[in-house]
């Protein structure tokens, strides 16, 4: 059986010595799933998250001397992941715009493969499931920080204090992001099901 270790968010770097490459690898492995959620949150899709985290790790390895041993490794890496994901998103926007201006093909809506639940543009297939479709569309309406907060809370079951530390935001802000995101997704789902009622008002109406 493969020897893997459950992710331990917020792993502290070893004290008393410089963070070397092997120590980095161990911490990176521990933090990987959290970092992946940050990447997926910023990107708004899961498909490029692997690449973003790996690219961010490469960046980090070149800057190990900038890591302060008393600081939180996951938070440090999450910042790099976020930068990397944002840069990737910007590049992708430019690429799509250039493709459109040059008369090239539109951003892909074709499935990457018959079996894949994701499109070649990294988004989930719209026809995968009507319910998934609504969830993904509602996620698209959130900002990247809110998406990351929601994924870290819902998928990783992390406490708000940990989410706040990872993303460099106040704890109350992390909670507020999650609560608003939940409300928005609920509203979208209930409306999509035609069940708009007193309990399905938009969050701003409350």
């Amino acid at each position: 059986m493969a020897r893997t270790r459950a992710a331990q968010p917020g792993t502290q770097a070893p004290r008393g010595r410089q963070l070397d490459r092997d120590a980095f690898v161990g911490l990176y492995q521990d933090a990987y799933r959290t970092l992946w959620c940050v990447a997926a949150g910023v990107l708004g899709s899961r498909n490029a998250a692997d690449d973003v985290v790996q690219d961010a790790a490469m960046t980090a390895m070149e800057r190990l001397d900038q890591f302060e041993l008393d600081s939180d490794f996951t938070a440090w890496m999450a910042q790099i992941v976020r930068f990397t994901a944002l840069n990737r998103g910007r590049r992708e926007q430019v690429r799509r715009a250039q493709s459109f201006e040059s008369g090239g093909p539109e951003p892909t809506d074709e499935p990457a493969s018959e079996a894949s639940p994701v499109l070649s543009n990294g988004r989930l297939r719209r026809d995968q499931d009507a319910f998934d479709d609504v969830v993904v569309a509602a996620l698209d309406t959130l900002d990247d920080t809110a998406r990351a907060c929601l994924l870290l809370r819902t998928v990783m079951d992390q406490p708000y204090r940990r989410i706040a530390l990872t993303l460099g935001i106040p704890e109350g802000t992390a909670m507020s992001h999650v609560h608003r995101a939940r409300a928005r997704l609920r509203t979208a789902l209930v409306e999509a099901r035609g069940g708009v009622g007193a309990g399905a008002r938009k969050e701003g109406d409350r």
Partner: protein
Amino acid sequence: MTRGPASEFERLLNDSLDGSLSPEDAAALERAITSDPDCAKQAEAQHEIDERLRRLFDPPECPGLEAAPVKRHLTGWGRFVAVAAGILLIVGVAYISWPASDGPGYAPPPSAGELHQAQLDAGFRPLWICEDEAEFREYTQLRLGIALRVEPTPGVELVGWTTRGGRYGMPGEQILLARVDGQPVVVLVSRGQIGPEPRDLPSEQIRPKRRQVDEIVLWELGPGESAAVIGGFEVAPVPESPNSPRMPSSEDGDEREQGASLGGSPQ
């Protein structure tokens, strides 16, 4: 200031999801759900949403430690061409059989034979193919931090790149699949002095050959006595490109405003 019924229900629902619901509030939430169809609908929708999010965004294990199939998304790689478009069988055999580690979360490197065999077991299929020298240069610059090129050699075919099955599956440690006179050859490409040094020689058929180019350490794992692939490696210049990945800089004003820093966050 008092909360309206909808706002109060939302607080109860969030407290429930966050595990901070008091017994009194739990009873109140239960009453709201049983007595108000809209509340019931909201609660049901919330649980379904959470379930879907967990399924749709279930994070994978760290590459290099998992044995699960993955599919890589490659559109962000510009001119790179994905040929392994379907679900790939990922190398897990080597990891599964690894002996005890020298620390928590660490795994010793696979042997040369194990790593070579693992690639064959996975169908000797790459995750990325570079169609020309420019793509090869771009790939190595991005993944290894140093742009490389390979001098074409008769009898040597570069099949493509993968990251799975290596020592850690880490960035900075890539695996190039090649064929020499039709025979599969695995090249470990690592930046830094450590390098994924094969720890033993379990097979007479697989003979590791080492070469270093700048900071790049190359291990060629193949049957030949002498290196056929790594001899052609050399550092290549990288032309500036506006779309090239870049490091965060002080020009990222929106990030700077949020206090982001690469210098570490206070604990």
